[in-house]
């Protein structure tokens, strides 16, 4: 996932949300729990205090009685954190009672520390127990006997705050783990959600690749409504692109027709006459003819450059050329032998392939004695990430070319810009076309006696 991606944006937004919300929620839950646990702790202490007070006062005369069994064994255990204590306060004299856990120690009195009582008459404070442990202390002050003169006794119960803190700490750990798991789960779900939500984009990517490679001509299929406008626009763009090319082609063709007939007239007229003027006109007209065909070919190529990929089946093209050439060279009785399996496809315009193969085959027919051999096959990619190639070879059984001659026609292809129009071999346009497709053309001696031309072109 790269930073500059929709997936990253969506994922980052969701993550920020998760990391913001989860701690806040955690803190809220923690506070509520803490409050709840503290309150129930206080309730328990208060309940114990009430029981001790009631029990003791029931058994009392002027002295408080010993409370009965409280059902809390920790009151028996020394320094357990759970203590109770009954003692006179406010200067009164009298009996002092305490839980065995308190031993000889005593608990501090909120009453004496001037803590105000709550609405139930209980005074609360946090302090230290006999073992210097933090404790929660609740105290009620009760007058035995006559309200005005009776002795004032302090009833006190203490509970260990450690126990409370422990409970809260355990809860906090568990809560943190639970929230962390929830966070992780949320992130995972978000990740999947983003992937799922962006699936149509991947589909578009694949279909666009299919258009580029020529397997499709437009962006087809159901797409989410949000992307539909994009789909329409893209298809319109592809179509308008195609229309522009077709129009350019037609206009180039019209221009060719418009120029070539008058040129034919001029050339023939000038050839009839033997005056120096006519010779000059004939010479210049021939030059114009070459220039016209050269630049028309270039214009056709420019019209094609940058088009969205098309695929052309090789076999029907080869068969059409075979019929045509065998007829044109019927006088010589030339046979064009095809070896081209169905399904071999060229990545590019049909007209361009026709032009390349037509010129190469025509050249071969011109020089051949009786036979021209045409072979087309795909060669799988040789390197990783390489592309499938279309290999076309054309052989003839004619006289062939010497090594120097072959080198010369090969060289002409490399210096495209210096190529003069009308090289007479018909291979100049083949060279240009092959190079415009990033292909290669090679010449060698054929085992059939003549020239071997090998074209290496992109296959589909």
């Amino acid at each position, binding site marked *: 996932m790269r930073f500059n991606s929709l997936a990253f944006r969506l994922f980052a937004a969701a993550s920020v949300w998760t990391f913001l919300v989860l701690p806040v929620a955690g803190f809220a839950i923690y506070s509520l729990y803490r409050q709840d646990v503290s309150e129930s702790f206080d309730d328990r202490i208060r309940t114990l205090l009430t029981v001790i007070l009631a029990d003791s006062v029931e058994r009392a005369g002027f002295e408080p009685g010993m409370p009965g069994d409280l059902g809390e064994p920790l009151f028996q255990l020394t320094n357990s954190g759970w203590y109770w204590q009954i003692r006179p306060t406010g200067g009164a004299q009298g009996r002092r009672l305490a839980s065995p856990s308190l031993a000889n120690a005593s608990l501090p009195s909120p009453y004496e520390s001037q803590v105000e009582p709550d609405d139930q008459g209980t005074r609360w404070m946090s302090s230290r127990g006999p073992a210097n442990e933090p404790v929660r202390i609740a105290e009620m002050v009760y007058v035995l006997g006559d309200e005005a003169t009776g002795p004032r006794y302090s009833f006190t119960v203490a509970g260990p705050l450690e126990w409370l803190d422990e409970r809260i700490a355990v809860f906090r750990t568990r809560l943190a783990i639970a929230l962390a798991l929830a966070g992780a789960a949320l992130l995972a779900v978000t990740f999947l959600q983003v992937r799922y939500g962006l699936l149509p984009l991947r589909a578009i990517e694949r279909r666009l690749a299919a258009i580029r490679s020529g397997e499709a001509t437009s962006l087809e299929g159901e797409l989410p409504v949000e992307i539909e406008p994009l789909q329409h626009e893209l298809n319109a763009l592809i179509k308008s692109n195609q229309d522009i090319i077709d129009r350019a082609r037609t206009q180039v063709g019209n221009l060719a*027709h418009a*120029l070539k*007939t008058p040129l034919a007239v001029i050339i*023939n007229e000038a050839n009839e006459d033997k005056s120096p003027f006519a010779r000059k006109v004939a010479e210049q007209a021939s030059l114009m003819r070459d220039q016209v065909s050269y630049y028309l070919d270039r214009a056709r190529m420019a019209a094609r450059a940058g088009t969205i990929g098309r695929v052309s089946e090789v076999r029907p093209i080869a068969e059409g050329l075979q019929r*045509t050439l065998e007829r044109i060279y019927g006088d010589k009785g030339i046979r064009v032998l095809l070896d081209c399996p169905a399904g071999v496809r060229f990545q590019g315009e049909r*007209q361009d392939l*026709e032009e390349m193969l037509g010129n190469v085959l025509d050249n071969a027919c011109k020089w051949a004695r009786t036979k021209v051999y045409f072979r087309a096959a795909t060669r799988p990619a040789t390197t990783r990430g390489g592309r499938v190639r279309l290999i076309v070879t054309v052989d003839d059984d004619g006289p062939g070319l010497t090594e120097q001659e072959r080198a010369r026609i090969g060289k002409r292809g490399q210096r495209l810009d210096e190529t003069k129009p009308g090289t007479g071999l018909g291979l100049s346009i083949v060279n240009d076309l092959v190079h415009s497709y990033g292909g290669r053309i090679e010449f060698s001696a054929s085992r059939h006696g003549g020239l071997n031309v090998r074209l290496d072109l992109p296959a589909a």
Partner: protein
Amino acid sequence: MRILVVEDDPDLRRQLVEALSFAGYAVDAAADGEEGYFLGDTEPYDLVILDLGLPKMDGISILEQWRRAGRKYPVIILTARDRWSDKVAGMDAGADDYVAKPFHMEELLARVRAQVRRASGHATSEIECGPLRLDTKTARVSYEGKPIKLTSHEYRLLAYLMHHNGRVVSRTELVEHLYDQDFDRDSNTIEVFIGRLRKKIPGDMIKTVRGLGYRLTAEPDEV
């Protein structure tokens, strides 16, 4: 040999007619597709030169209709559309050769000669009949190696007989193939030229087949 030229450009049409006539062919010309189609459909041409971009009816449909109707004469397509796809389409429609504009007249004439020869079953540019020899390239006739001087009308007649030597050729066929459509078909020029040829060529090679026509042969009379 009679040729139809279908070409809409008036200058080029005139040039073609002149050059072909000069080369010894009888030439008819049509300026648009409909006229061209009609002529080709009704007259017995030995060859047609057909432009593709024509007004009223395009060359490819004309050609297809001719071929469908069983017209067998060779057709040379003459067009500015020189892409191989155009050539393949033209040949598939039934053309025999394809010449791209602009062209050299000599080139076209050579193609015309080759097609005429091929259509009458001759493989080389020289046609022989016994001691008589016709070079279609140079339009020269010789007898036992000695050149015979002929006028253009005489040459046309002999060339047609040479192309079809051994076969009986009727007077009507000769008129149809040697003269363009404006020729007065009732005149007796054919007989006159046959008479002249018989005088120039030794060995009584042009036989009259009574009621049928003429036959050029090197064989002696089978009596």
